[in-house]
């Protein structure tokens, strides 16, 4: 992943709140961004030349990852900062983007389900959809994940796009997450036997039918949006900036647009490759390495039979999920360059510690919950999985609890 970093560090000069609005980007930055996008296009074309369906799926995964990376970066689609924006500053835009993404993806999934599984009552789950087991292990894992998010300043998907922005914390958070995954594998067997083995994978359409599930989901999301709006302070009217280019390349994308795009990418990705998720490749790398080092138990009970961000011992260098993550990081890097958000900085000791510790908590949580805010929360709620809703509830609780504790320990919150 470090391969997408530019060879030379820029001088830490433009650390201002935003690049000066007059110049969208320097020619050098635009040139590097064009090279990255060109490289992604060439790689996608090359992958697509493999005869049969495999090459086409790999090509699609890379492009979908790139699209996702651009939307995350340009929309600042980050679960933690969006939640904090609302709770701390009364800015509801980010939370609305998440709710729009959940609603749009749910509608998209419903359309796909109608073709793939016309009868939801037949006792089958829709293929490969992230419908995970619902039990105390999920709630605990989501809570711990939330604490890890608060500690490290981002969820895992946001750390991945922030790698592309040159964040000093993110590389350590991803490293920490790999270690957290290994911890998760080590605790998997006792947790599975004690808490998970007999818990049901609840798929709401199987109980409600498609129409009621869809209407109920949209109603709950609508209610949450209304709730968020009531907490929001009246937005300071932003100064309208002349020019479409500025709105596309520099300004943060409006929440509705970012949300709709995430919903669309999620739907198309489910249709063509797999539900969105960003931890399968990280987890697989951790599992392969730890397994090769002989740290893991021989058998991880039931793990390979459960739905979610599956981690497998790697046989190929890059899986479809690996290509997705690679596309995400590369494209968010290019998008950050163009918008002037690429600001690498040397990490401070605090950032390293927060990254490693928060990352480890998130890695453990994502392994135990079989995914993160993308794989379980987003793809789960899209798919009508109760596990998605449980994750949402407990991850928010984890963030709120950690932030409350943080305020007690340290009256002035250090920036994440």
């Amino acid at each position, binding site marked *: 992943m470090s391969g997408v970093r530019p060879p030379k560090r820029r001088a830490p000069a433009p650390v201002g709140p935003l690049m000066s609005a007059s110049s969208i980007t320097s020619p050098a930055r635009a040139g590097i961004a064009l090279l990255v996008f060109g490289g992604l296009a060439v790689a996608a074309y090359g992958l697509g030349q493999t005869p*049969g*369906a495999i090459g086409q799926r790999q090509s699609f995964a890379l492009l979908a990852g790139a699209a996702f990376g651009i939307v995350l970066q340009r929309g600042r689609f980050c679960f933690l900062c969006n939640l904090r924006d609302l709770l701390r500053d009364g800015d509801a835009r980010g939370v609305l983007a998440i709710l729009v993404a959940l609603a749009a993806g749910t509608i998209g999934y419903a359309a796909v389900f109608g073709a*793939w599984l016309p009868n939801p009552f037949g006792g089958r789950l*829709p*293929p*490969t959809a992230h419908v995970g087991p619902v039990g105390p292990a999920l709630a605990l894992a989501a809570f711990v994940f939330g604490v890890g998010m608060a500690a490290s300043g981002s969820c895992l998907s946001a750390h991945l796009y922030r790698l592309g922005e040159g964040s000093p914390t993110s590389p350590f958070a991803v490293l920490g997450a790999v270690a957290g995954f290994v911890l998760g594998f080590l605790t998997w067997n006792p947790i599975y036997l004690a808490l998970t083995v007999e818990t049901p994978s609840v798929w709401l359409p199987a109980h409600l039918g498609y129409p009621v599930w869809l209407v109920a989901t949209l109603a709950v999301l609508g209610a949450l949006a209304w709730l968020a709006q009531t907490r929001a302070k009246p937005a300071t009217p932003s100064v309208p900036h002349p020019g479409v280019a500025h709105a596309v390349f520099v300004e943060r994308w409006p929440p509705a647009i970012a949300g709709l795009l995430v919903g669309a990418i999620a739907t198309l990705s489910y*249709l063509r490759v797999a539900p969105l998720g960003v931890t399968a490749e990280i987890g697989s790398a951790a599992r392969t390495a730890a397994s090769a080092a002989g740290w893991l138990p021989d058998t991880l009970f039931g793990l390979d039979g459960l739905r979610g961000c599956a981690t497998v011992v790697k046989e190929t260098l890059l899986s479809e999920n690996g290509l997705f993550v690679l596309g995400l990081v590369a494209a968010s890097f290019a998008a950050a360059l163009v918008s002037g958000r690429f600001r690498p900085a040397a990490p401070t000791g605090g950032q390293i510690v927060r990254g490693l510790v928060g990352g480890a908590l998130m890695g453990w949580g994502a392994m135990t919950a079989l995914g993160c805010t993308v794989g379980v929360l987003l793809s789960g709620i899209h798919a009508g999985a109760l596990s998605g809703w449980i994750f949402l509830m407990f991850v928010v609780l984890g963030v709120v609890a950690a932030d409350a504790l943080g305020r007690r320990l340290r009256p002035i919150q250090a920036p994440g």
Partner: protein
Amino acid sequence: MKVISGVLGFGFALALGGVAAAEGSAVVTADWVADNLKNPKVKVFEVSVDPGVYERGHVPGAVNIRWHSELVDPVKRDIASRESLQKLLSAAGVDKDTTIVLYGDNNNWFAAWGAWVLETYGLGDRVKLLDGGRKVWEAKGLPLDTATPEAGNGSVELTPLKAAVRARLGDVLKVAEGDKGSVLLDIRSPDEFSGKIFAPEGSKELTIRAGHVPGAKNVPWSKAVNADGTLKPKEELKKLYAEAGVDGSKPVIVYCRIGERSSHTWFVLSKVLGYDVKNYDGSWTEYGNSVGVPVANLSGTVWQGK
């Protein structure tokens, strides 16, 4: 009216002609399937190993068969019951005179297993494999569909289970103990056959003894297919198995690890070459775990609980 029925009759004759073209052969080409997608007397089924493959795009009009639950008994280790298979095929609109075409991923492994299961219920003559399976269909760039087809109930009727194509542990044991009446064919990899390994990497179904049934010949199933996934020509297949001592002069029993890959070889020997073949669906996971049976272990690997 007469004109209309004449036209209909002509169309029907064409359709029947299309089926007749496939009558002589146990496999049909992807092009034949593409030409017969609208033929009411042809029903296509996908039997893929991996879930989610069918739903993301299948041969238009094909019905999904999930081998984990629909070709086997989900509780005891056995093939699916006559009632449940009858229900499945009827709901897919299979009539008494419908040609059933099976295909799947992984070189038709589980499609061939499906063909064997249907053979045990007396449908063998009307079951064909799409030569090369998904791989060839995709490589040719033929269209894929994501819709799930619907059909009225068909009139298909399954016979009671026929033992003629199924070998049980007792049948295999007889050969192992010296009966020269039939010949055993192990279609696993040479390393499994010799006993170097207990099972391929990642296999969950294990035995606590390695090796093979004494007297068995070894021809890995994959030797029967070309690089593109299609079956090799008949003469080449005949030669391949004859060199290993399987020439059709004696009844054959094929086995593998769990009984599915051996269906592929069962199909080649029985349906393409016309030999008298039984599939031993207990295979090495039953035999290699049985107490007191003779085992040939060329490598001398000892089970150490790992």
